[in-house]
């Protein structure tokens, strides 16, 4: 994902856009949305003067004023609860939860109000808001800074759950999330915040609707299904797998809810084998749902059981041990090796 420094210079020399990070693309998405629509309000802890602890809201308060990009009191339920009231009055709040594990105090507001408001008012009062949550590990964070909390949100009807894995998607998906009339939990993979690409805000952004998965690498032997922070792991594993003669396809879900079962099923029917890869724990994790659906939809095309490569079912470990917990290339390849190649082609 990272463009080397020499590549950057070459790109500049060739007149190509300056590499942008995912954090910058997210900032740009909010900036453009705020410029287009005065109803868009950014709020959260440290999002104003500081520009957020990851600098994702950098410059927004300066450009749009503190009423549009607001440093709130340090209280997540209050942040989300007041955002509900703001949405009731016609605003489109974009809420930042500072870290995955710090979003839990807001859970009641999310489950009992944000997710249900459209339903309990029979469509009269939708909740157009985005809840941005930096999530996942791999950044050496101390306790409570590295959770994969996506399954809690996926299990709550009424929410969309979206997570970008590329810089371009970070911009496009966040614009779509802000434009959505439904609440979107927007999970930002922390360890990809500084990933760079040649995407530029000046170039026309390819914006696709929420709910479409994408094939990041075509292949014929097996499908790796993943999202967010595990996409680079899967792409690297797919490259390494060629040495073993395995041609792997990699599907980036981009949206966990809605779940694009058409793209996933089409891929698995082609390849006949599937491995779901994510940082979240395996037991009752996202992969459990995905594997069940693949089995239901593709049973007669499968050459092997659907496997999962997931984080262990443990509280997120101390940073000095996290590399043993996070699914890496080797663990993905080990799973691929167990896909009963001898039985099929």
């Amino acid at each position: 994902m990272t463009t080397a420094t020499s590549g950057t210079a070459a790109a500049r020399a060739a007149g190509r856009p300056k590499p942008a990070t995912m954090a910058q693309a997210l900032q740009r998405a909010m900036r453009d949305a705020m410029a287009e629509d005065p109803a868009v309000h950014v709020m959260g802890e440290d999002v104003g003067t500081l520009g957020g602890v990851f600098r994702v809201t950098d410059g927004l308060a300066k450009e749009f004023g503190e009423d549009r990009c607001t440093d709130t009191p340090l209280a997540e339920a209050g942040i989300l609860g007041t955002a509900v009231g703001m949405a009731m009055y016609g605003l489109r709040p974009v809420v930042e939860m500072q870290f995955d594990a710090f979003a839990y105090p807001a859970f009641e507001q999310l489950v009992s109000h944000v997710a249900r408001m459209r339903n309990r008012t029979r469509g009269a009062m939708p909740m157009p808001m985005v809840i941005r949550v930096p999530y996942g590990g791999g950044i050496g964070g101390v306790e409570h800074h590295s959770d994969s909390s996506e399954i809690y949100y996926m299990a709550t009807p009424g929410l969309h759950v979206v997570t970008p894995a590329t810089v371009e998607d970070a911009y496009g998906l966040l614009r779509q999330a802000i434009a959505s009339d439904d609440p979107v939990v927007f999970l930002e993979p922390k360890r990809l915040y500084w990933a760079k690409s040649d995407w530029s805000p000046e170039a026309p952004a390819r914006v696709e609707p929420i709910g479409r998965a994408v094939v990041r690498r075509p292949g014929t032997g097996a499908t790796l299904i993943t999202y967010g922070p595990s996409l680079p792991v899967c792409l690297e594993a797919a490259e390494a797998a060629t040495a073993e003669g395995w041609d792997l396809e990699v599907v980036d879900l981009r949206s966990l809810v809605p779940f694009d079962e058409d793209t996933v099923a089409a891929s698995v029917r082609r390849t006949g084998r599937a491995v779901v890869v994510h940082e979240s724990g395996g037991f009752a994790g996202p992969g459990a749902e995905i594997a069940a659906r693949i089995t239901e939809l593709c049973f007669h095309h499968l050459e092997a059981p659907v496997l999962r490569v997931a984080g262990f079912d443990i509280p997120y470990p101390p940073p000095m041990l996290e590399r043993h917990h996070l699914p890496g290339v080797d663990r993905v390849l080990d799973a691929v090796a167990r896909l009963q190649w001898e039985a099929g082609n």
Partner: protein
Amino acid sequence: MQQRSSTVQEPSAAQAHRPTPPAWRPRTDPAPLLPDAEPLRVLGTDAAADADPALLRRLYAELVRGRRYNAQATALTKQGRLAVYPSTTGQEACEIAAALALEERDWLFPSYRDTLAAVARGLDPVEALTLLRGDRHTGYDPREHRIAPLCTPLATQLPHAVGLAHAARLKGDDVVALAMVGDGGTSEGDFHEALNFAAVWQAPVVFLVQNNGFAISVPLAKQTAAPSLAHKAVGYGMPGRLVDGNDVVAVHQVLTEAVTRARRGGGPTLVEAITYRIDAHTNADDATRYRADGEVEAWRAHDPVLLLERELTERGLLDEDGRRAAAEAAETMAAELRERMNADPVLDPMDLFTHVYAEQTAQLRAQAAQLRAELDAEDENR
């Protein structure tokens, strides 16, 4: 530390050169924020003479209607027409005053117990009761009536009121939000966070706590050690007001002042109304397990309808004809409510999937198709 002495000494040379700590001063003067020592009472005092007779008559008609509404709704639970009804019998003064203190453009944020406030604000009682009948979570368009959905998770509607009032102020609209909560709800974290946000943002919100003595069975003494719930306001930097919650004129006065103050940019107010839940928590509760009959009887003597009736009668504003007219109007409302609630609501099960998202997901479309097939099979087998 060893050199500390009990005798007063001149500062030593070292102490004289010790740097002074950074200056500190309170962020705001707490004295004006403190509630009065006694709940405000108007009825039965000299202040009652200043009350507008037209307002008193209006309040009386609403109180009588509200009392009858509570009785009718409770009866509907016994007839199986309501799944549950949390009564506000004895608390009608708070419910009515909250509704009448607001302008049409303002917003009311009721808890599940506050259907009467919504009805007093003009909502169709049948629409107000759908949550408790069990056919629709919210039976009305909140934006049309500027009444937020009846809120069951305690105190979670309070931050909504703050956010809405804040948004209105950002848009330049002079809209006030009035949020209702009970004494038990003040122990919730959302109560604290809502009041803190409201004060920091100086949002035009009024918080009305109806302290009716009990959170289901748990008395206030097990809920808080604060001098009063109104005192909690001081910690947030907003004024706290104490009022006799059974004195409808006093509650109306305090809420109107707080609403006016909020509308003028003066920020939020916390109002604690001292009242009493004459009925059990709901029809499913048995209040004799946690409180004595004598306590209930003492509060019956301090009844909100009785207090106003006495005042009006003494001032010659209410005679037997007026009393009968109010009772008849209330009876008409009750009869109409009874008749309309006796009709079974017409529900389409396919609506289950209609308002989950703006656009149905593929998964929900599949589930809707499954239910459709089940319903069709039921029809065929009928």
